[in-house]
């Protein structure tokens, strides 16, 4: 009988030793990342004239939002600095805005609290650079653009050989995609420092463009049958093709695309997915995204990425670390949507509510 009990006792001792080993020498697991809501605010019904709802503090970061028929600015603490109803459209930057009517030609540049900065005129629609230091008038036929100074005077004007289908601006560069498949990169003076017409497709057209934060790279989605992702690097007047990748997509509309603030990668809409292009490897990895990509947001300068897409009445939110593991995922019904960045976090808006989402390591 004692001979039968010995193996069981040995087994028990072995398990105990293993357990003690793991208690004494725990295996270091990877840190888990979680997306945590920092705050949620309701956007109160607004008037056309707009209302400052909290004093703006210069040392507290803030961000713009556009949600359905409202827009405004919110601080990183969740204080609404300004909310206003959209007249027809609004040109928004991180620092200022121009709210304009459909046929009006006189515009007012206002700051985050709605205070008037300057006024100017144009026959098209205003457009601001993302940080708000540059003001443009996009001509109403989409075949020309004018940059204005703070007094509303024309700095430069340029007409295009076809009408614009996409535009992106950073501090010093403006990329324009045309219906004839031409991609232009203009400098501060409006002079084209790069012109390219991506080839290889049966029909030439540009559906999206983006300029990297340092202006060294320009990306475009071009063509029909097949559709390509083109990433070009500025190399004098002759652009160097960094990548030209055929996409499994058949878009015939503008699509969303942008470089991360740290310039480490490029996010763009695919067909039911989102592509993440890594310039260092010149390759694309894919994330699934249902329906039409409605917004891209970056947290911590691009360390993580937020995506919202719309399919029918449902919205899919994904938060992920590019080239790594997903952080959060949710599907919910919503009509109005917004996704942006705020002080290292994501600013998510849906149906009258704004939420700051932070990604933290546990």
């Amino acid at each position, binding site marked *: 009988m004692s001979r039968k009990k010995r193996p069981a006792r040995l087994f028990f001792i072995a398990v105990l030793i293993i357990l003690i080993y793991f208690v004494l020498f725990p295996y270091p697991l990877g840190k888990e990342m979680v997306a945590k809501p920092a705050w949620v605010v309701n956007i109160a019904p607004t008037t056309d004239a707009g209302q400052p709802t909290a004093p703006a503090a210069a040392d507290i970061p803030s961000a713009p939002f556009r949600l359905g028929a409202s827009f405004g600015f919110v601080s990183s603490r969740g204080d609404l600095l300004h909310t206003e109803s959209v007249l027809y459209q609004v040109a928004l930057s991180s620092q200022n805005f121009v709210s304009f009517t459909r046929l009006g030609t006189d515009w007012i540049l206002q700051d985050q609290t709605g205070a008037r900065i300057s006024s100017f005129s144009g026959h098209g629609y205003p457009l601001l650079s993302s940080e708000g230091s540059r003001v443009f008038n996009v001509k109403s*036929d989409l075949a020309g653009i004018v940059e204005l100074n703070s007094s509303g005077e024309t700095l430069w004007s340029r007409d295009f050989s076809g009408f614009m289908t996409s*535009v992106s601006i950073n501090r010093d560069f403006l990329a324009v995609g045309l219906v004839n498949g031409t991609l232009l990169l203009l400098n501060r003076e409006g002079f084209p420092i790069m012109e390219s017409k991506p080839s290889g497709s049966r029909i030439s057209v540009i559906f999206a463009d983006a300029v990297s934060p340092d202006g060294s790279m320009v990306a475009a989605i071009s063509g029909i049958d097949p559709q390509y992702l083109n990433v070009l690097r500025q190399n004098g007047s002759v652009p160097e093709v960094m990548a030209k990748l055929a996409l499994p997509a058949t878009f015939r509309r503008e699509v969303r695309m942008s470089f991360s603030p740290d310039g480490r990668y490029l996010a763009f809409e695919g067909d039911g997915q989102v592509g993440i292009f890594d310039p260092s490897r010149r390759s694309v990895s894919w994330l699934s995204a249902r329906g039409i990509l409605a*917004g891209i947001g970056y947290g911590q300068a691009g360390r993580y990425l937020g995506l919202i897409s719309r399919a029918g009445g449902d919205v899919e939110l994904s938060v992920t670390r590019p080239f790594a593991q997903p952080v959060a995922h949710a599907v919910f019904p919503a009509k109005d949507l917004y996704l942006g960045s705020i002080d290292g976090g994501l600013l998510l808006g849906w149906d009258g509510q704004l939420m700051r989402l932070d990604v933290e390591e546990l």
Partner: protein
Amino acid sequence: MRFSSRARKHVILVMAVTGALAAGPSAALDWPVDDRVLTGTFGEDMGDHFLNGIDIGGGSQEIHPVLPGELVFRYDEVSDYSSLPRGLGTFLVLRHGQDVLSVYAHMQSGTLGPEKDTYDVKDRVGFAGESGHAQSPELHFALYDEEAGSMVNPLALLPVLADTQPPMIRRVVLAVGDQRQVLVDGATLRPGRISVLADVVDLREDVRFSWPLAPYSIAVSLDGNEVARIVFDSLQVQEGRAVLGPRGPSRDAIYDPDGLIRCATLDIHPGSSHLRIVARDFAGNETAREIAFTVQE
């Protein structure tokens, strides 16, 4: 219906050079709407650019392709995936043949229908509306020649609209430096270089209110010799600026802030002279203004 690039360019060339408007070619395209009230013509001054197509009023109505074509680009004003301000409102672009695009703009939002790749002339692309920078429910229709890189006057290729109303030359103005004077018959002028400006509008009988349109062409002759001709047949971009024709004037060069058209710059010499300005519309109607003047010694 055949629509070759060669035939198209031949049509435009013939019309531009000979001005044989009344005997215009058989139409290559179908009208995109049934109710055709022309409220904007190619080359009109839009404040900061030429109108690069035609505006067709007639209220909200179905829009059909002018030819069978393939969808290139579409945009609905209510979409939330675009960051580009859209003066064209809800619009759609079709490609026909090898290198011609047709553009249908200012359509009602939400009327583009489900996305599809190809369109027949019987298909509906949307409804005329007032999305974007439109003054009233209308269709802005434009044609783009990809090979030439130019916008083409659609009236050159659409079936001729009945119109017996000739353009009007309301006044002719001479400018010498900053000085201006209305030029009347029998005037006495000083010798030197002058600019000739004219207030020229086209009127149509189907537009029952005063809605001035751009004419198709303006020709200026001095003492029987043609010295200038402006033809609103195509727009190209030269050195970042849209110009009429391959090497014509830009909008700033042609349109005076007062709405006058700068027709010609002339050197006038002592003696009697005779200025003739002829304005034509696309239906072939013509108006001429003859002015005799004397240039002092």
